[in-house]
């Protein structure tokens, strides 16, 4: 990957982070930490990796992006708006009445939102169903499914991995946001037995790749590698910093589900180069 492309993507990710902070401050509720932490991954997917056309959101040959941990949808909305699925000014309607930008995603509320999610575990199974149907149709499109460490406390997640491995759904790439926080505190306190993580996924017959999920080059390399996987689905464990890009959000679980007031938002935007 050329340095120039990586630099452009990094700049795009900063723009998306600014949009996330602005829309969440305007909404007054939502989930900044995970959204900011995964901004690099969403940027890589929408602006480099997935085969998609915002003008043809129902193209049967499109790659599918399934957001399973739906609470970080501000990152997806911001990336989609920047990619041209809808106008950026609509981001300011997030969580307001009569908005297409629901607090948690609603399939087809905006063309390009592929699934409804929020209740954890569900998108993982939907991704497996889509991947299975694509295989049945000999369709080469891929499924990218974004999940999170907390989400993997749901039993349904493990049901879905059993299914994906059994059906050899090597057309799925999972990207797991390993940010070590959830609503009630650090994951290491709430559910320390999530670890050992890599070995669990390997035991479930997934190809596991571990990366720094805030390093654009590592993200791109891992996603590219997953495209050539044969036989097994790929699980990219993306170690991210929750709240990444804003010093006073970073690594503080209190920002999982709380938004900044106007003053803090302005401080945050300055740090993000506004």
């Amino acid at each position, binding site marked *: 990957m050329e340095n120039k492309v990586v630099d452009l993507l990094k700049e795009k990710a900063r723009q998306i982070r600014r949009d996330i902070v602005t829309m969440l401050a305007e909404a007054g509720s939502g989930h900044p930490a995970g959204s900011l932490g995964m901004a690099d991954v969403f940027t890589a997917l929408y602006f480099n990796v997935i085969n998609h056309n915002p003008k043809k959101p129902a193209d*049967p040959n499109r790659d599918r992006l399934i957001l399973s941990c739906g609470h970080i949808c501000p990152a997806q909305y911001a990336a989609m708006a920047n990619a041209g699925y809808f106008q950026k000014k609509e981001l300011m309607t997030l969580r307001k009445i009569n908005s297409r930008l629901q607090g948690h995603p*609603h*399939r*087809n509320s905006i063309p390009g939102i*592929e*699934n*409804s*999610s*929020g*209740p954890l*575990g*569900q*998108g*993982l*199974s*939907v*991704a*497996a*169903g*889509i*991947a*299975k*149907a*694509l295989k*049945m*149709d000999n369709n080469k499109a891929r499924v990218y499914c974004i999940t999170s460490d907390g989400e993997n406390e749901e*039993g*349904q997640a493990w*049901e*879905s991995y*059993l*299914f994906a491995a*059994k059906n050899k759904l090597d057309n799925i790439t999972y990207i797991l946001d390993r940010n070590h926080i959830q609503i009630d505190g650090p994951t290491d306190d709430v559910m320390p037995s999530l670890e050992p993580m890599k070995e669990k996924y390997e035991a479930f017959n997934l190809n596991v790749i571990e990366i720094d999920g805030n390093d654009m080059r590592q993200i791109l390399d891992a996603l590219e590698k997953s495209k050539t996987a044969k036989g097994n689905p790929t699980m990219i464990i993306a170690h991210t910093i929750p709240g990444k890009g804003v010093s006073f959000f970073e690594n503080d679980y209190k920002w999982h589900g709380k938004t900044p007031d106007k003053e803090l938002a302005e401080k945050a935007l300055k740090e993000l180069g506004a």
Partner: protein
Amino acid sequence: MKINPTLAKELKKADKEASRDGFGKGLLKLGKTNKNVVALTADLADSTRVEWFKKEFPDRFIECGVSEQNMAGVAAGLAFTGKIPFACSFSAFNPGRNWEQIRVSIAYSNANVKILGSHAGITTGEDGATHQALEDIATTRCIPNMIVIVPADSLEATKATIEAAKTNGPVYIRVSRAKVPMFTTEKTPFKIGKAQIFREGKDITIIACGIMTYQALLAAEILEKEGIDAEVINCHTIKPLDKAEIIKSVKKTKAAVTAEEHQVNGGLFGAISELLSSNNPVPIEPVAVMDTFGESGPADELMKKYGLLADDIVKAVKKVLGR
């Protein structure tokens, strides 16, 4: 007035068959006519009769193992990619175990998924209360976008299965394990949302679904001998309710009895009470399982013990007419 001969045969001449068999036949027919139809199960292929589809169309059969929640999500994903999935298990688990996945992944997304709940009701029998789903009509009919069908017999289950595949959006079909009289005919029409008057009468409207429609017709014969002229409606679609047909009937009879193999709370009695209380209030009595769990035993003995036979409907009719 006798039973409408174009809708049903003479009750005593009916052969017995389980409605799960009717579903299995319908699914097999669909397999032959619609290549997009796929079938899923969660380790209950034989019991749900999906086995018959599996043998004929192994490439369109998806075994999920014991994981109903995952099955619901996989079915949604298949539907989003152009398939018409039938997700099949016991109704105690599907929609019992996976209700929230059905709510969000399927119904909120308006996914074209058909949910088949077999072994519904107390007639599941010997397996006991854990496997006797008695709450599933209530838990499905309260979900927006969801159509809820309770076929009266095996033949109607076949028709319901085929019609469900033609309807875009989520549908729940409830079928049973017990062999019960198959009293409708090949020619009996079936349209989702269209209730059928199997027998016209002027004194009382009996609104039934599932295996209770047959009991309601038996009850009407008993009532006739006592000079009570009962109208019997087969309300196979609980949602959307055929409001016009039901209101028209009770305007004539001015009283109603509902009959269902389900808890008294939230099922057919609930649906009819909601409709009539806002549109045409009349006295209504339920015949249902009265807010209790079932138990192990033969289906026919359980129906007697839990008050789900024609005699129980007769009693309810007399009670409501005396109010």
